[in-house]
């Protein structure tokens, strides 16, 4: 069984198929292929043993044995939902961009599938260099997506996005190379296999910056913090989000940012346990600053899309503090918040895109009274807003609650400041909703030459799955969290000595080890 290879590499084949398809068929074919891919990835759920913290469905083939680099894919509770989020959002994006993208649609859908392959690949890669390859590869299609199909300042935005991300990831490359040589010194052979790298004891000196573990920790953290993006490395994000076409924004916010936060969980915390604990305060502090700063800046944005972009900075701040609370609640909440953010911010960008298609404007001041003109749109927008500001019963509530609980247990002070972010979040979102949807009709709404039409069947179909997820994740979090529980507990409880086995369970949950070993192979 090569399920993981299939869901990683098939999209590359899809990209070629799209290029060969007749122009009129591109969209339906892309939709079918992406739905097929989603169905295939749901198949993982059937094969996945949720009681096991081990790496499952692993595939390991030597790639460049001279450097110990291998094509090593595997999935566990941490990456499972992120992979599904990626494959779930892709068909939605294809359907959502049905009419918005009219320039070279073949190229667009090919880029979309290459992006999907790179994103899925980086969540599944269990070899540091392979991860790096996918991580960097994902830049290229996104770079084209923003640069070709983006808005006015697209070139500035896309180049900035590319270069910012490169700065961090190249430092990470050096760190990976260093780790590979450390592995050679201890294991006797150069390797980038993550399971082996977890076993390394990298020298750490508390209170001193110039020691291997601290430097490596910051090299990796820089790469991921830029990607997340964590304050103060967030400046590329508003530009890229605002200039990106709707599908680009959805995937950028929905999935690509998670590649950063996932990197913290997969690489930084398990590889550099001492440094992570020593310097957790840095990330808690910057996370909290990000939450408050993002919310305050979002409040004064005149542009809806920019507001949503800054709200991402704020929401990703929660993800960061949850992770660096380094306890089960925090990490679980952080993982859940990644999914929530993917769903709700993705949905917000789609909604903003839909209204932009109608009016070609995103200025809040030009709207007003939209609720009367577009009732269905308004209902959907308000539901997603509730999810975004974490109203109970929606998914956002579970995530933020777990994160705040975890942070409170770890560092009370930071949690108290973070809570103000929840209030501020409600302020900027609701104020925006008030100005756009209620009150007297704005100039765009009462424009008689361009009457506004409510959402059509396609647009409703795009939103339905997202709305269902908002409530499903809000009401039955355990349907999702149960699958990640074992992995998260393994990470938190064994954070000083993290081990991950491909097939056999680690000590913490030894009971059913033998069964899994058989299944895993």
């Amino acid at each position, binding site marked *: 069984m090569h399920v993981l290879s299939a869901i990683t590499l098939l999209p590359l084949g899809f990209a070629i198929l799209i290029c060969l398809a007749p122009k009129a068929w591109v969209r339906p074919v892309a939709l079918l292929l992406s739905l097929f891919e989603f169905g295939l990835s749901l198949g993982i759920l059937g094969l996945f043993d949720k009681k096991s913290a081990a790496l499952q469905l692993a595939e390991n083939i030597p790639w460049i*044995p001279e450097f110990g680099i291998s094509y090593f894919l595997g999935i566990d509770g941490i990456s499972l939902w992120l992979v599904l989020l990626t494959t779930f959002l892709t068909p939605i994006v294809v359907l959502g961009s049905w009419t918005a993208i009219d320039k070279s649609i073949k190229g667009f859908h090919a880029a979309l599938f290459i992006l999907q392959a790179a994103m899925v690949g980086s969540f599944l890669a269990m070899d540091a260099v392979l991860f790096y390859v996918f991580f960097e590869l994902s830049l*290229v299609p996104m770079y084209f997506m923003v*640069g070709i199909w983006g808005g006015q300042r697209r070139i500035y935005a896309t180049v900035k996005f590319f270069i910012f991300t490169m700065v961090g990831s190249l430092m990470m*490359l*050096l760190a990976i*190379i260093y780790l*590979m*040589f450390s592995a050679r010194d201890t294991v006797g052979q150069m390797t980038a296999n993550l399971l082996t790298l977890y076993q390394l004891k990298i020298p750490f000196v508390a209170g001193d910056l110039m020691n291997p573990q601290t430097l490596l920790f910051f090299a990796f953290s820089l790469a991921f913090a830029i990607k997340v993006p964590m304050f103060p490395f967030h400046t590329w994000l508003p530009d890229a989000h605002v200039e990106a076409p709707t599908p680009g924004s959805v995937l950028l916010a929905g999935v690509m940012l998670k590649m950063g936060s996932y990197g913290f969980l997969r690489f930084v915390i398990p590889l550099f346990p001492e440094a992570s604990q020593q310097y957790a305060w840095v990330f808690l502090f910057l996370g909290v600053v990000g939450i408050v700063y993002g919310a305050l800046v979002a409040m004064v944005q005149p542009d809806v899309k920019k507001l949503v972009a800054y709200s991402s900075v704020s929401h990703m701040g929660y993800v960061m503090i949850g992770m660096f609370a380094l306890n089960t609640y925090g990490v679980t909440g952080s993982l859940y918040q990644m999914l929530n953010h993917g769903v709700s911010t993705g949905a917000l960008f789609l909604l903003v895109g839909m209204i932009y298609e109608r009016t070609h404007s995103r200025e809040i001041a030009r709207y007003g009274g939209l609720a009367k003109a577009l009732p269905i749109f308004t209902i959907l927008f308000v539901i997603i807003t509730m999810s975004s500001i974490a109203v109970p019963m929606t998914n956002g509530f579970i995530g933020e609650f777990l994160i705040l609980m975890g942070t409170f247990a770890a560092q009370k002070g930071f949690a108290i400041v973070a809570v103000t972010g929840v209030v501020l979040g409600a302020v900027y979102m609701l104020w925006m909703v008030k100005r756009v949807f209620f009150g007297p009709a704005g100039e765009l709404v009462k424009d008689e030459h361009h009457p506004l039409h409510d959402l059509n069947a396609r647009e409703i179909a795009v939103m339905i799955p997202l709305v269902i997820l908002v409530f499903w994740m809000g009401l039955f979090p355990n349907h999702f969290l149960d699958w990640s529980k074992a992995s998260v507990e393994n990470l938190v409880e064994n954070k000083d000595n993290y081990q991950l086995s491909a097939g056999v369970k680690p000590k913490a949950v030894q009971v059913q080890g033998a069964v899994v070993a058989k299944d895993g192979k």
Partner: protein
Amino acid sequence: MNTDLMQDLVVVIPISVLFIVSFLPLLIKVFRGNQEPNPLLPLCYGFAGLVFATGFTAAMSGGQKTAFTNAIILDGASVWSSCLIYFLTAVGLMLAYDHAATRGRQFSEFCFLLISSAIGMVVLVMANDLIVTFIGIETMSLCLYILVAMSREEILSKEAAFKYFVLGSFASAIFLYGIALMWGTAGTTYFTAQNGIPGLGDQIEKLIAVNRVFVVGLGMVILGFAFKVALFPFHAWTPDVYQGAPTPVTAFMATAVKAASFVAFLRLFHSDGYSLSPNMMTVLTWIAVLTMLIGNVGAIVQNNFKRILAYSSIAHSGYAMVGLIAAAFGSDFNEGAASLLFYLFSYAFMTMGSFALIALFEKNENISLNVEDLKGLGRKYPVLGLSLTILMLSLAGIPPTLGFFGKFYVFSAAVEQDMYWLAFWGVINSVISVYYYLRPIVVMYMKEGESVEMMTSHLMTRLTVVASALVIVVIGLLASPAIRAVRAVIAMM
């Protein structure tokens, strides 16, 4: 004695045959009353010679052979780099066959000069003696001086040739003086032991520490090499010469000359003695860092595509230096040396492809392609646009292209020798370089406009562009055999 001579001659059969074969079209031209034969004729003769030389050299590979009282050495590195040089010469001939500046009335002379220059390079990579190295460099360079001036209409071509000639002669003179000083102090010009006198490699440790004159001589020799591979501060000629020379010649210079000079440079550093001279390492490290910086920062402000690539080639010399420094001053010569060879190999494909693409848009001799001229190229010529994208991403070192693995290898060689500073600067420079490598892509796909016309009839040039892009991706994904090959090559050195 006689059998010795025979064995010596066998080693140089490839270059002798190549010389004679490339000379034939010139003879034919003379007998026809100075009438230029069909350009296919010199091209075919050239190819035949190159194929024979490559085959014969490859057949001689394995182990170490020396000839002419050890002055010439045929080991893994020289076989490997000779084959690379022959291959690049063949591609250079293909580009020249299509190009307006070189195809004209003097194509048989052009082929002869290009191949003679390649012969000089092969001598250079086989040299085990500084005098032979000098002969190699001079043969290579003298031919290049003429080749650079080959364009009849382009005024920059003459300026470039003159500049290159004057500066190159200075560099050669200094190089020669350096050899004299080294001979005076070490008593030998051989890299390895000869007639009971220990070679330079064996004496370096002792001489560097105590003998100032030797150090000055060594510095001068290094300067000579630095000029040829365009290291800071001897890089200033590169943009002008690369821009002025006919594009096929530029492509040849940027790839083959660099490969050959770096291999000879590597031989000079093939000694354990260097690891004990940290001062020299510091100097070379800074030269490498500044070379990368000057190249990358210089490229950012350029508009002419050829000049951008010229600055980029300066920067790439800096990256290659990272591998060289790791080999010379680290505890293990082999990994650094292998990374250098792998880097030269990957660099050759990327650069050859990029210059070939420029050649494709040069309708006349005196046309110069600015980046802005590429507007809309991606839509007009999709295959070419995709190839250029791959070439640029590879030059920038984005995985999974060959350029990424080249950089990965040199940086890992530096990290292995604990030269983190060097690797750090390499990485910083890679980031800077991304900016200008993305520019052609931005212009090509993201700006509206009509691109300049491509020379659709130039089939061989188009083939070169597409094939090099393909090679970059395929060898990028399957880098393992190539890495094994360079390691095997270095193990035989």
